[in-house]
C-alpha cells in the first residue's frame, strides 16, 4: 500500500509562496497547512518555499483592486445586451425615472427595464464598470489593472517549472503550489451570507490572484483536530486547502488532491 502510494507524487515539487503566509492566518489553518505538507511529502513530493522576491506580496495585494476593476468592466460590458428589445419582461412603471429630457423613448424604456430587472449588486457593478471604462479613466484604472494582471501571471509562471521537453531546466521551479482557500470562518446565515469587508478582503486575496492568472485550482477540505490551541475565533474543524498549478496541469493537481483526501 505505502509502496504504491509513494509513487503518486514522485518527482513532484510543491511550492509554498511566502507572499501568502500572512500574519492574520489563524493557528488552526496554519496547522492544517502543515498537515498537508507532511502528507504530500509522504506521497513522494518535495516541498519548498517560494520567496517573496519571486512572488511578491505587493503584487498579490494589488490583484484585489485590479480584479474588481476588470470584473466590473467586463460585467458592465457583458450585461449591455439586456436592453429589453429582444428578450426580457416588459415593465409598466412609467414614473420609475425622473423625466430626463435627454433620453428618447427607446432609451427611457431600456433604462426602466434594466433598473427593474437587475438586482442592486449587479447595478452597482455595472455602474462601477462603466465609470472605469470611460475615456478619461480607462488609462488610469483599466490599463493599470491589466498591467497588474499581467504581472501576477508572470510571477506565477516564473515560479513554475518548465520541463526539459519545453526547453527549460529542471533544477528550479515547482510543479504545484499549496495555500489555504480561506482565512476566516464561513459567513453565518445571520450575516446573510455576506462577510464583513475585512474578512472578504482576506479571503479574496487567497483566490483572486490565481483566478486572474487563469490557473487551474482545486480546494480540498482538511479536518484539523487541533481546535483547542490558542483562543482564536476559528470555530470549525474543517479547513479548505488549495492546490493549484500551471495551465494544463489538472492531472498532477488531481494526484495531489487524492493524496490530501486520504488524510485521516
Amino acid at each position: 500500500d505505502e509502496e504504491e502510494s509513494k509513487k503518486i507524487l514522485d518527482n513532484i515539487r510543491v511550492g509554498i509562496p511566502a507572499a501568502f503566509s500572512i500574519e492574520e492566518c489563524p493557528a488552526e489553518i496554519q496547522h492544517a497547512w502543515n498537515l498537508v505538507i507532511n502528507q504530500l511529502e509522504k506521497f513522494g513530493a518535495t516541498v519548498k518555499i517560494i520567496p517573496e522576491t519571486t512572488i511578491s506580496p505587493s503584487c498579490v495585494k494589488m490583484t484585489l483592486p485590479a480584479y474588481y476593476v476588470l470584473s466590473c468592466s467586463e460585467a458592465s460590458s457583458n450585461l449591455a445586451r439586456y436592453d429589453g428589445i429582444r428578450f426580457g419582461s416588459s415593465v409598466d412603471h412609467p414614473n420609475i425615472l425622473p423625466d430626463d429630457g435627454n433620453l428618447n423613448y427607446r432609451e427611457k424604456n431600456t433604462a426602466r427595464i434594466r433598473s427593474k430587472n437587475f438586482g442592486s449588486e449587479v447595478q452597482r457593478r455595472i455602474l462601477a464598470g462603466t465609470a472605469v471604462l470611460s475615456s478619461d479613466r480607462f488609462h488610469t484604472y483599466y490599463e493599470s489593472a491589466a498591467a497588474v494582471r499581467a504581472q501576477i501571471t508572470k510571477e506565477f509562471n516564473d515560479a513554475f517549472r518548465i520541463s526539459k521537453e519545453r526547453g527549460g531546466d529542471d533544477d528550479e521551479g515547482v510543479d504545484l503550489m499549496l495555500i489555504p482557500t480561506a482565512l476566516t470562518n464561513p459567513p453565518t446565515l445571520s450575516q446573510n451570507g455576506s462577510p464583513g469587508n475585512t474578512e472578504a478582503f482576506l479571503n479574496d486575496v487567497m483566490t483572486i490572484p490565481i483566478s486572474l492568472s487563469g490557473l487551474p485550482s482545486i480546494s480540498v477540505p482538511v479536518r484539523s483536530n487541533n481546535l483547542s490551541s490558542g483562543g482564536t475565533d476559528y470555530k470549525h474543524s474543517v479547513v479548505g486547502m488549495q492546490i493549484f498549478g500551471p495551465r494544463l496541469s489538472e492531472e498532477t493537481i488531481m494526484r495531489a488532491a487524492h493524496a490530501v483526501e486520504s488524510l485521516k
Partner: protein
Amino acid sequence: MRTLLCKSILANISNNSAFSCRSLSAATSSTSRKLVYNRDTGIITDDTSSQQLYRSIIGIEIHAQLAVPTKLFSSGPTKHHPDHNLDANTSSSIHDLAYPGTLPLLSKSSVQKALISAAALNCRIQELSRFERKHYTYADLPFGYQVTQQRWPLATEGLITCRRYSPPQPKTKGNNARNRGGQSKVSGNSSSQEDLVELSKFFDVGIDRIQMEQDTGKTTAVSIGGSKTQYLIDFNRAGSALIEIVFKPQIHSAHEAASVVSTLQSLLKYLGTCDGKMEEGSLRCDLNVSIYPISPSDFSGDEADPNNPFKKYLPKGAGNRVEVKNLNSLRQIIQSAEYEALRQTSQIINGSPTGRETRTFDPKSGKTIMIREKGGDVDYRFMPEPDLPPVRLNRNILGKNSVQEFLDDNLPELPEEAIHRLMHVYGISEASALIITSDRPAISFFVDSVALCEQELKGDNQIDTVTVSITIANWLCNDLFALIKESASKKEEKESLEGALNHPISVEYSNVSAEQLGSLVALILNETVSTTQAKKLLGVMYTEELNSLPLDIAEQNNWKLISNMDQLKSLCRDVIQHGKNAKQLEQYKLGGKNVRKMTKFFTGKIMAESRGNAHPELMGKALQLVLKEIAPGVEE
C-alpha cells in the same frame, strides 16, 4: 451601343450632363450672394463677382461587407450563403442575436479577404492586431457594443490610385466602337488622343487604416400616422464581417469623392472580397466635409476642430467637419458633398459657421439633415475584447507560413496592371480594357479567345495580333456582353435571389465559350463570313447552347461569303442579263455618268440576289469584269 456594364463603371447619375456646377443662393437679410460649387475642383465661387471664396475638403470612410458565407464570429449565414433567407429575422444565429451563453469564434475566411483587400490597397499589414468592444446603445446593436479594431487595426498607411470620375456623356450617333455596314475589315483602333487625356487623370489618395468589424442589424423607419414613427429592426445581417476603410482627407471635390468610391468598388468586386452593391448596402459611405478659405486673409485665426485626428492634413483655416452618414450611391455622394460645401460656405458668410455635426442625406430633397450636434463627443468606452485572442496572421489563420506566401498565392494581378497589359501587349483601347477588367473572368476569356483565333488564322500573314485583339475585344464588349445581359435579365425574372458573388454580367454566364468566339472572329478576319452573318452566328451559338463550331453553323445555314470569282461572275451575269434590268443595262451602255449610277444599281441588285452573302469587294471586281464582257468599250 454601350453596354450597361460600362455605365456601372463610370456613373450612376443620369441627369447632369453639361453642367458640373450647382448653385445655391445664400439668402440672408444682409447680403444675398449666389454661390456656385464646381464639382470637379471643389471650389465655391461667388456667382456675381466670380471670386473664388472657399474650397471643400473631404474625408471618406467606407464600410464594405466581405463576401463570405458566414458571419464574422459565428457560423450563421450571410446573404452570400446559399441557404440565406431574405425575409426579415429568419437568418440570424443565437450568437449574433447576443443570446447569453455563446462565445465568438473568428472566421478565417473573413480575415483572409480583409487581408487581400488591404494588400491590394498597398497597406502596411499588421501581423498582430486586436479586437475591441465599442459600447453604445441602439436597437439594432444586439450586444450593446460593436466588436471592432480601434487601436490595433489590421492594416495602416495605404494608398489608392483613382481614375478621375466624369459624369456620363449624352449618347450621340457616332459613338459606336465598331464599324458596321458589312465591311470586311473591322477597324476601331484606340484613339491615342483619348488615351493621353485619360491617363493623366489619375490621382492618389492615402488610406489611414483598414480594420475588421461587425455589422449591426438594419433599422427601417416607418411612419404610422400622425407624427409617430415605428422602427422595424431586421437582424439578418447583424454580425456580418465588414472592413472599414478610412481615407485621409486628401480630396477636394464631389467628383473626386465619387472617383475614390467608384475605384474602390471596382477593385473589391474584382478581388472578389466584396460584391460592391451599394444599393443593397454591401458598400456604405460616410463623408466628412469641411471648407477652407482660398485666400489666407479670410482665415479668422481661431482654430476650429482642434481634436480632429487628421488635423495635420487640413489646410489653414479649415472649419469644423460635418459628417454625412450612410450614403448609398455615387449620386448621393456627389449631391451631399456639394450641398454641404455650399451650406457651410453660406453659413460662414452669414457669420454663423457650422460646428461639428452629424447629418444624414435625404435623397428626396437633395439636402442633408442634422441628426446629432457635437458629432464627435460620444464616449464609446473602448475595451479590449476579452473573449478573443489577438489576431495573428500565421499558418493557423492563413493556411500559409507567412503573409507574403499567402499573398503570392491569393493576390491576383490588379485591375490597373491588367488594363496596362491589355493595352500595351494586346493593343486594345482603354475603353475596351476597362470593360474587360471590370469582370475578372473576362480577362482570361479574352486572352484565350485571342490565342485560339490566332491559331486558326495561322498562315495568313496579313492579319496581325493587334487586329485580332481589337476585333475580339469589340465583339466581346459589345455583342457578347449584350447577349449575356439580355439573358441575365430574363433569368432574374424567374429567380428571386441573385446571390452570386460575381457581377451578374460576367462571361461566367456566357453560353458561348472563348474558343467559339475566337473561332468566329477568325472567320470574320479571313473573310469567310461577313459581319452581318457573324452576328447571326453568334446569336445562334448563344441560344443553342451547344458547342457547335461557327463554321458548321455557317455552312448549315448558308451564311458564308461567296468569294469564288466564277460563282460571283455568274451571279453578276444572271442579274445584269435579267429581263427586269434590261432598261438599266441599256442606260449603262450609254456611258458617261450612267456608268457609276448603274454600277451602283447592279451592285444593290446582285447583293440582294445573293441574300447578302456576296463578298462585297470581290463582287465589285467581278461586276467590273462582267460589265466589260457584256458591254465592252463603255466609258465614264
